[in-house]
Every structure is written in structure tokens, then in C-alpha cells.
């Protein structure tokens, strides 16, 4: 049971206690507290368990699977199999696993290829130019054939570390949302885009991209919200071609065929020459048959 024991200890104090680096007076005060506070002692125990050096066979198996998963996501070759019995071997194996390096390579690719992007928006734009993750169209997205895999499977691109680069470049909510959206990481993309949408003066592009996230999420309950966001985007800017394109897709998916046909025609009035227009004509023809 906990008794009166004063202010609880910060995580940093707990780990410094384990390290033995606390000032003697603080160490003594921490011990007084830890004896009386079950919660802090349990947190101390938590860090003792997290930081322990031995690795169980179960943990080793999970770590191996995790490393494989990481490689898959980063498009890197799997690390060689080996024993995970000691911390040293873990570090070594995962180090090799450190296809991780690709992460940095990706930053390097983005930073050195063509013109080095100077803003988070340019990073997203560069990534969007490489592949098309889904049918619907993000704001400012150049036309590409649809790729049926996760964006993060793209060889040579490590999104995990590019996320760090995005932050370093002070990406705003919309840009972070777009960054995760193009990876189909809807869990991360949606909160960012919803924040951006609530900001005063949210643009047609923000509404469109939030609509794309709802549309592609795979959660049927979000589909109606996707249609609303595309409409909002068009209310902001009637000539916003991406939203016009997406609204037509929305009608198709909801089996509103007549509306879809009419929306494709509206889109083609806005854009009759691009590759998006070619795709739209194909879809319209498909609906007419």
C-alpha cells in the first residue's frame, strides 16, 4: 500500500538511480520515496525489466520477426539469421539488419537527387512523383499508374527516417498528414489531416486530402465523410480538379452511377488534356457501357 511519500519521481530520476549517477542527497531522498510509493517502485521495476541485459528465447524470436518486418517495410534485404542470446549479438544482428541505413540513404536520395528539397512540402511532392499509392488523387499529385502495394514498400525509400526529415523541416499538420497518407498509414495520417482541416482558413487541398484519407482508409463508416470533404474542397475552389476527380470516384464507389457519370464530365470540363483526363475518360466509358 502507498503511504504519504511526497512528490513522485520522474522516469529520468528512476533510471539515473539504477545507473548510480544521482547526487547522494537526491539518491537518499529517492530511496525514501521509493520505499513508500508503490507506483514509483513499480515504475522502477518496469525500467529494470526493460533494461535487463539477458534476452529470452521468446524475445529473440520476436525480435527476429520484427527485424524482418522492418526490412520488409524499408525494402531492405533481411538480416542473416543468428543467435540472439546476448545483447551483443542483438546489436550486431540488428545492426546488420540495419538496412536501417537505407533510411539514411533515402534521406540522401531525397536530399541529393535532382534538387535538394528545402521544405517538407517538397519532400512529399518528391515522394508523390515516385508512385501512386491508390486510386484517388492527393492534392498536387502528378499522374502515375496505380501501384497495388504499400507506398512504404518502395525500394530505396525508408519512410521511417524520412519522417525524421519531415520533422526537421518543420512540416505542418497538412504536410505530415500527406506524408503518412502516401504511405497508406491512415492511423497516423488522419489525426494530422483532421487537425489541419480544423485550422482557420483550411484550403481546398486540405479538405481534399482528408477526403482521400477517409476514402482510402477501408473503414466503410468513413466513406460518407470522404464525400463531404470532397464537396467542401469544391466549395472552397470550384476548379479544384483533384477534388472533382475524387468526387467522381466517390460516386462510383457508392454506386451512384448517374452522379458519377455527371461528375466525370464536370471533371473533364476542368481538365481535358492531362493523363488524369485520359483516366477519367476511360472510367466514364466504363460506366456508359
Amino acid at each position: 500500500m502507498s503511504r504519504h511519500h511526497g512528490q513522485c519521481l520522474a522516469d529520468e530520476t528512476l533510471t539515473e538511480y539504477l545507473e548510480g549517477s544521482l547526487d547522494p542527497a537526491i539518491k537518499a531522498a529517492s530511496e525514501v520515496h521509493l520505499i513508500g510509493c508503490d507506483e514509483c517502485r513499480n515504475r522502477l521495476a518496469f525500467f529494470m525489466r526493460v533494461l535487463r541485459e539477458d534476452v529470452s528465447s521468446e524475445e529473440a524470436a520476436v525480435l527476429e520477426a520484427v527485424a524482418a518486418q522492418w526490412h520488409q517495410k524499408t525494402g531492405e534485404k533481411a538480416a542473416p539469421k543468428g543467435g540472439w542470446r546476448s545483447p551483443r549479438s542483438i546489436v550486431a544482428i540488428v545492426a546488420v539488419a540495419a538496412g536501417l541505413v537505407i533510411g539514411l540513404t533515402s534521406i540522401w536520395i531525397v536530399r541529393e537527387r535532382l534538387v535538394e528539397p528545402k521544405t517538407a512540402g517538397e519532400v512529399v511532392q518528391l515522394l508523390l512523383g515516385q508512385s501512386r499509392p491508390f486510386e484517388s488523387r492527393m492534392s498536387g499529385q502528378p499522374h502515375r499508374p496505380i501501384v497495388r502495394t504499400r507506398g512504404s514498400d518502395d525500394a530505396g525509400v525508408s519512410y521511417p527516417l524520412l519522417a525524421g526529415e519531415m520533422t526537421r523541416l518543420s512540416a505542418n499538420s497538412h504536410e505530415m498528414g500527406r506524408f503518412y497518407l502516401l504511405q497508406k498509414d491512415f492511423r497516423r495520417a488522419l489525426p494530422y489531416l483532421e487537425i489541419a482541416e480544423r485550422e482557420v482558413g483550411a484550403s481546398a487541398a486540405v479538405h481534399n486530402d482528408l477526403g482521400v484519407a477517409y476514402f482510402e482508409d477501408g473503414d466503410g463508416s468513413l466513406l460518407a465523410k470522404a464525400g463531404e470533404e470532397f464537396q467542401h474542397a469544391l466549395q472552397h475552389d470550384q476548379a479544384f480538379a483533384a477534388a472533382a476527380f475524387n468526387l467522381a470516384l466517390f460516386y462510383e464507389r457508392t454506386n451512384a452511377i448517374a452522379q458519377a457519370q455527371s461528375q466525370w464530365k464536370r471533371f473533364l470540363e476542368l481538365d481535358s488534356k492531362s493523363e488524369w483526363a485520359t483516366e477519367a475518360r476511360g472510367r466514364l466509358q466504363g460506366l456508359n457501357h
Partner: protein
Amino acid sequence: MSAPDLVRECGEKLTDRDLWRHFQERFQGLIFMYVMRTLHLRHIQDDVTDVVPDLTQDVYVRLVQHDGRVLRSFKGTTEFSVRAFLARISASVVQDYQRHIGSDKRGAQVIPIDYATAGELNRRKPVDRPEVDSDQLSSILSWIDMERVVEGDSDRKNARRNALIFQLHYINGFEAAEIARFPGFDLSKSGVQAILARLRKRIQE
């Protein structure tokens, strides 16, 4: 380069390719492990294979965001301090994840006491607690006044540390060797065992 220096250098040079490759080679495995263990200890989900890479990504973001503020705040000087630093960041990221998925009912980073006691004590048969039934002593410890244990300890200088070790052993389920591995306790395995034996005897009296 030492581990603490490497962390500090990365904080200063957020886009230095070679430096960050070095960082990954040395610490990526540890981050995987700390995230995985935190997920397990907090009972968030059993199959963590999918989520650990994503949360590891969040650890990297946490390290570099705001122009590397977290990295630059690191003041440690030892290998252990780096591991502890990464463990804290990993735990914090997992805690945020737990909040996000809505399973954080208590909002605090606490290991359920049943996990600490039943989970650990029942599974293990430690060799260094022979005279007293562990469950019996654990229940005694739930109402015993630890201040009296402290006051009664002949090792006045380290009485509180010793009482804490006693609790870590009997309530939280750590064996003497596990406790002795942490430099903060400044004891060998046999030193921890001696303390446990002495305090156990006092409580029995």
C-alpha cells in the same frame, strides 16, 4: 566514439549520414527490444511484430523532432545512460500509442502488482529465499511498516536502499542477481543475498 558521444553528435548533426548509420548500427536493436518489452509489460497486445517497427519509427521522430531537442537534452556519460535514455523514449512512445488506441485506463506507467508478484514469483523458484514462503512474506510486506525495517537495519548508511532491495525482491519478484546487475545498487549478488537474509531474519523476529 563512445555511445554517449555518439548520441550527442547525432543531436548536433541531424542530417549527418555516416553518423546516423553508426547510430542505427549501435542502437536500433536496443530500440526494437525496449519497444517490444514495453508493449509486453504494459499488456498492450500479444502480437507485436507489426507494431514494433511503426513505434520504432516514432522513436526516431521523437529523437529528431524540434531540431533534435530530445537528443540534445541528453547529458549522460555512460553506456548505461544511453540505454536508459533510449528505454525512456521508447516507453514514452509506447505510452502515447497506448493512449491512442484507447486502452490506457489508468493513465500511468504502472506495472500491475499482480504481474509483478504472481507473474514473477510463481514462475520462478529463486534459490535465494529458502527459509520463508514467498507468498507469505509478500502478504506480510503489504502491511508491514517499512520505516521500522529501515530503522532496525544495522547497516545505517544503506538502510533505505536495503529496504528497497527487499521490496524489489519480495514484492516485485527480482532475484538477487538481477538486482546486482544495476550499478545504482552498488552490490554484488552475494551482497544482495546477504541483505535479503538479514532483513528476512529481522521480519521473522
